[in-house]
């Protein structure tokens, strides 16, 4: 029997024994609605192909149909888990075209909101990784503490996820009284809880063994597929948009950018991606405390843009013709927004450059050679948002 096998060349031989598994679009291991076509050699993945497009809602087309102000609501539906980043990118671009001067207080409120949603998004990432590894208690602890951040969102903006709180020229409303104290309280509480997560989960050897050297992204692959954000920093590329292209009041904030050091065994593995995000939560808490303590006074919206004083005629905002391109550091990476306005009531074109697309492009490379039990670990460590990738 073995003689017959030798006659076939090794390539054909290899392919004969492989099995094919098509996962998706609805599956517990997947971060969202996507299809994975895997060829497996036993339990080890030989190659994988990704198909997306299931969550295409035509966001950019919808923005072109509705008036300018409605674009804010669509921008924060770009990434439901960290809503304020889409709005922020759009507002920064449109304010460049319209030439609004943003008061310092509005800039501080925006910075607080973006750091809070970075903390809440990274906590959600911890929940996904804990779920993929089967640490059930960790999920409940992190979700319970994330509620504190969502309560802060509701206290300030009235909504827990899709805030639609930013406006072109500032923010919708001033800070509710008691918000600043609650932010400081939340910072202290979450920092104490991170110590508890570490004892329970991060320093646990089984977690280390499940994530070390799993789904390694080499710096070359990260550069090749254009990875940005925590995924790229975990692979050793220290690029952070808040440092490289400063916006809001980040130049005056001092925070360091954690980079993957390979404590889990290899630089750029799932363990590094988890640790980088954990350290970024610590950094964001530092920024939040600094912002909350040094909250400037003044009005929260640049004068002349208030909507309350708008009459039925001036409801539709008129943005002068022009073009702008803004980059921000969202919780998943570099989020860019390219706005073109032809002076009319509706935006001519709003285009979002999204970080999850690069993570999806890196997947086929990363999936080679992992066990299928590690598939959920790799997919959740990359923190891919399909809603953002398909727009």
């Amino acid at each position, binding site marked *: 029997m073995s003689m017959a096998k030798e006659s076939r060349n090794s390539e054909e031989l290899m392919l004969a024994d492989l099995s094919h598994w098509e996962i998706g679009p609805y599956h517990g291991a997947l971060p969202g609605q996507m299809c994975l076509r895997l060829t497996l050699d036993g339990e080890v993945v030989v190659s994988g192909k990704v*198909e*997306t*497009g*299931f969550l*295409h809602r*035509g966001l*950019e*087309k*919808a923005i*072109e*149909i509705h008036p300018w102000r409605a674009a804010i609501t669509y921008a924060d539906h770009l990434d439901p888990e960290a809503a304020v980043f889409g709005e922020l990118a759009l507002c*920064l*671009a449109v304010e*460049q*075209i319209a030439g609004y001067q943003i008061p310092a207080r509005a800039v501080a409120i925006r910075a607080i909101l973006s750091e809070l949603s970075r903390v809440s998004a990274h906590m959600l990432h911890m929940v996904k990784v804990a779920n993929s590894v089967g640490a059930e208690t960790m999920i409940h602890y992190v979700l319970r503490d994330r509620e504190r951040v969502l309560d802060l969102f509701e206290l300030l903006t009235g909504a827990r996820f899709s805030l639609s709180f930013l406006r072109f020229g500032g923010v919708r409303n001033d800070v509710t009284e008691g918000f600043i104290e609650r932010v400081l309280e939340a910072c202290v509480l979450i920092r104490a809880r991170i110590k508890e997560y570490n004892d329970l989960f991060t320093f646990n050897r089984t977690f280390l063994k499940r994530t070390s050297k799993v789904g390694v992204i080499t710096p070359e692959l990260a*550069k*090749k*597929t*254009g990875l940005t954000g925590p995924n790229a920093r975990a692979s050793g590329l220290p690029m952070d948009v808040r440092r490289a*292209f*400063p*916006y809001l009041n980040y130049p005056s904030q001092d925070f360091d950018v954690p980079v993957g050091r390979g404590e889990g065994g290899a630089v750029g593995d799932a363990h590094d991606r988890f640790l980088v995000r954990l350290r970024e939560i610590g950094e964001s808490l530092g920024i939040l405390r600094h912002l909350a303590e040094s909250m400037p006074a003044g009005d929260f919206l640049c004068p002349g843009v208030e909507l309350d004083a708008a009459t039925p005629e001036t409801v539709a905002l008129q943005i002068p013709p*022009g*073009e*702008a*391109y*803004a*980059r921000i550091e969202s919780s998943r990476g*570099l989020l*860019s927004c*390219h706005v*073109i306005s032809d002076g009319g009531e509706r935006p*001519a*074109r709003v*285009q979002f*450059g999204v970080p999850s*697309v*690069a993570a*999806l*492009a890196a997947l086929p490379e990363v999936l080679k050679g992992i066990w299928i039990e590690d598939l959920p670990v790799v997919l959740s460590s990359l923190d891919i948002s399909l809603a953002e990738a398909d*727009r």
Partner: protein
Amino acid sequence: MDANTILTKLNRAVPGVIFDRGRIAGPEPVPFGWVDGKSLRRLVEALRADQEISADHLENISVAQVGDALMVTYFFRAAHGCFALRATAVPAEPNAWVSFPTVRDLWPMAAPMENYSCELFGIRFVGADGVELEIEASLVLKAKDSEAGSRGFPLRKNFVVGGSSS
């Protein structure tokens, strides 16, 4: 070496290709150069080959319809700053395909962006050897082809959004 010197350097490398310049506003203004669609491929190869500029990050490919011409903007992040290249092409009639040279072999990160604009704007990306790249149609294209493709490409201005939104 700021962005403008990069553009002049490129202009010298492939004479007469960048016929106009401009600047996109933003927290970090992005100078860009208008490029003639035909020689875009040669310019991009020269850019990729040039080690001194080392523009190894293609950050974003943004396509927009201005008037009836499709305008493709390539945003680059080089070692010393960011710049952009912009080219336009006019489709023969509103629902026709348009062809652009691909850059995915030089910058692999361009592949998903090109697929996205191919499906939504109807841009065929032509490989280095002149052969049109066949992309596996994702759901958006399949949905469009299945229900009488005559409605055109979603993000073009002549595409009427029907459905029950109102």
